[in-house]
């Protein structure tokens, strides 16, 4: 269904300012053809402005937008081979579903639209609803009409502006898979704007995490999750624990850290700050990578693992896992997720425990940044 002559979306030095407020700092971004690309960030981070600059609905203050080899920076939206699925859909209330979907074809002077529109409505499973008005459909159905209305034009790029934001959780999950299926089927480049990190990770091949008008980090979901480069990314995608530690020195491929009375080991290639002895570093670890052992069994913890001690402050049973909050001298409110395989009945609030993990799972970030950056936004 794609026209193979498409190409990448290339943003070069693109930026947007409103008076003295900078919505998007000059950024470079390349979205490979046929990929599912997500712009992820909290509200006001500039992700929607970036999307609207690709659509042509917002004129960049600087920089250029290229679709393949074509410079579209100065083209109005109705001349760009790009279509948008708007937040809250923006379906035309005075037209029925059929005419909504046919709108783009008709504007381009295509006379016989019936077959195409019917095929497209079948693709989104709305064949029966063709003669209804938008307000007669449910939220999920409206969402699919908005998708069909954009897709029928075979755009080079489909832009999605928080398309699932108005749906309830269950429907959102279902639509995530649906969108992914349709993207694979039609092969069009999707650029998806969302504030939901789970949504971005589920659907996208590549995610750009945006914060305060800048791209903080760009990568595959797994790469972003495993190797966050800033505390913002580490906290915004999932949960991270940070231990403020001093660098003691290097030992082979590792960096040795001192935190309180204990020693921690961090792979050198995962340390984002120079391994100068005496310097500070934030040692990060994801809650699900940590094992929890009761202090009485401390001897059973294998050698070579990073370990700290603490007291369980809180435990929440969530079915699949139990989420513990552990108070430790080196880090208040250490989050630990333990799979409910063999539950140790002694692990209740007040119990002394040893937290230990494979050193390879530790990542080191520059201590100059706020360890809590992005926590609020992700909530």
């Amino acid at each position, binding site marked *: 269904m794609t026209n193979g002559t498409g190409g990448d979306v290339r943003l070069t030095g693109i930026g947007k300012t409103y008076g003295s407020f900078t919505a998007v700092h000059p950024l470079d971004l390349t979205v490979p053809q046929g990929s599912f690309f997500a712009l992820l960030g909290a509200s006001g981070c500039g992700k929607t402005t970036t999307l609207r600059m690709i*659509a*042509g*609905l917002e004129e960049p203050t600087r920089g250029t937008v290229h679709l393949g080899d074509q410079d579209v920076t100065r083209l*109005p*939206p*109705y*001349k760009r081979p*790009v*279509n*948008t699925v*708007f*937040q*809250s859909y*923006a*379906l*035309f*209330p*005075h037209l*029925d579903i059929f005419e909504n979907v046919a*709108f*783009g074809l008709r*504007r*381009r002077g295509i006379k016989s639209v019936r077959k195409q529109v019917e095929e497209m409505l079948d693709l989104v499973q709305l064949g029966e609803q063709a*003669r*209804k*008005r938008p307000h*007669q459909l449910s939220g999920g159905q409206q969402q699919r009409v908005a998708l069909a*209305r*954009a897709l029928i*034009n075979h755009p080079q790029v489909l832009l999605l502006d928080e398309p699932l934001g108005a749906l309830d959780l269950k429907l959102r999950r279902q639509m995530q898979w649906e969108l992914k299926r349709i993207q694979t089927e039609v092969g069009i480049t999707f650029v998806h704007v969302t504030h939901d990190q789970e949504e971005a990770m589920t659907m996208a091949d590549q995610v750009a995490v945006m914060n305060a008008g800048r791209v903080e980090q760009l990568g595959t979901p797994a790469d972003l999750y495993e190797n966050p480069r800033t505390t913002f990314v580490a906290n915004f995608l999932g949960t991270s624990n940070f231990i403020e530690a001093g660098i003691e020195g290097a030992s082979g491929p590792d960096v040795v850290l001192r935190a309180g009375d204990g020693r921690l080991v961090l792979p050198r290639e995962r340390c984002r700050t120079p391994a100068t002895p005496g310097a500070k570093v934030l040692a990060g670890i994801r809650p699900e990578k940590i094992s929890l052992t009761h202090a009485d069994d401390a001897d059973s913890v294998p050698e070579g693992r990073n370990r700290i001690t603490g007291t369980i402050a809180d435990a929440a049973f969530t079915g699949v896992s139990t989420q513990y909050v552990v108070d430790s001298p080196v880090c208040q409110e250490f989050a630990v997720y333990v799979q409910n395989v063999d539950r140790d009945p002694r692990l209740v609030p007040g119990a002394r425990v040893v937290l230990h993990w494979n050193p390879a799972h530790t990542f080191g970030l520059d201590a100059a940044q706020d360890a809590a950056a992005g926590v609020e936004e992700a909530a």
Partner: protein
Amino acid sequence: MAFVTWFKRNLVVIAGLLTLAYLLLPNVVVTVFSFNKPVGRFNYAWQEFSADAWTDPCGVADLCGSLALSLQLACWATLGATALGTAIAFALARYRFRARGAVNALIFLPMAMPEVVMAASLLTLFLNLGAQLGFWTILIAHIMFCLSFVVTAVKARVMSMDPRLEQAAQDLYAGPFQTFLRVTLPIAAPGIAAGALLAFALSFDDFIITNFTAGSTVTFPMFVWGSAQRGTPVQINVIGTAMFVVAVLLVLLSMVIGSRRTKSRA
């Protein structure tokens, strides 16, 4: 006791019917007396049934002439006020310009000002400009006072319109003109229609301002007023009844069309 219960249960319906009766009673009287055959010049006492006036509605000198003039005025005033008012409403709702606040406030002035004050000042203006009082001065006055009503009706509609609809149209290959024609205008249409209907009704039955600005020209309301001094011909009731019936028929028609449309979609 049973009556009290029944009364309580149907209180809303009874109140509704009484209100309707209150609203419609004048129309009933006008209709009944359009079939009267009065003795003397005044049509205020029932004498006997007669359809004379219905078979000869223009039988009174100048009546149909004034009616035609009023309809003509109302049509042009509606057209003028709707076109101008819609443009103003869009400008006020969409653009930020220097005198926007002032225009926003001033546009409501004609609605708030006593009509007789406006009428007198218009007359002064026209006389000072040396304008010939007649059709054109009436039309200018009518467009002026209808304008604020149209602006109010259209602006409310435009303000409540999601700006993303127009962006969506542009995104779907509609240029500025197509966007306006296919999306903006159809969505604003109910507001524009409401404004136009208001303008028509206001222009058609205006008496005070018209009386001041008409010179020797006589519109239908002026004719009714003039003849009421000397005696009321039955034909006035005929015209009144006919207009009421036309209005009711139009409403019924729009209801039938509306329900058929929803039915065909269901």
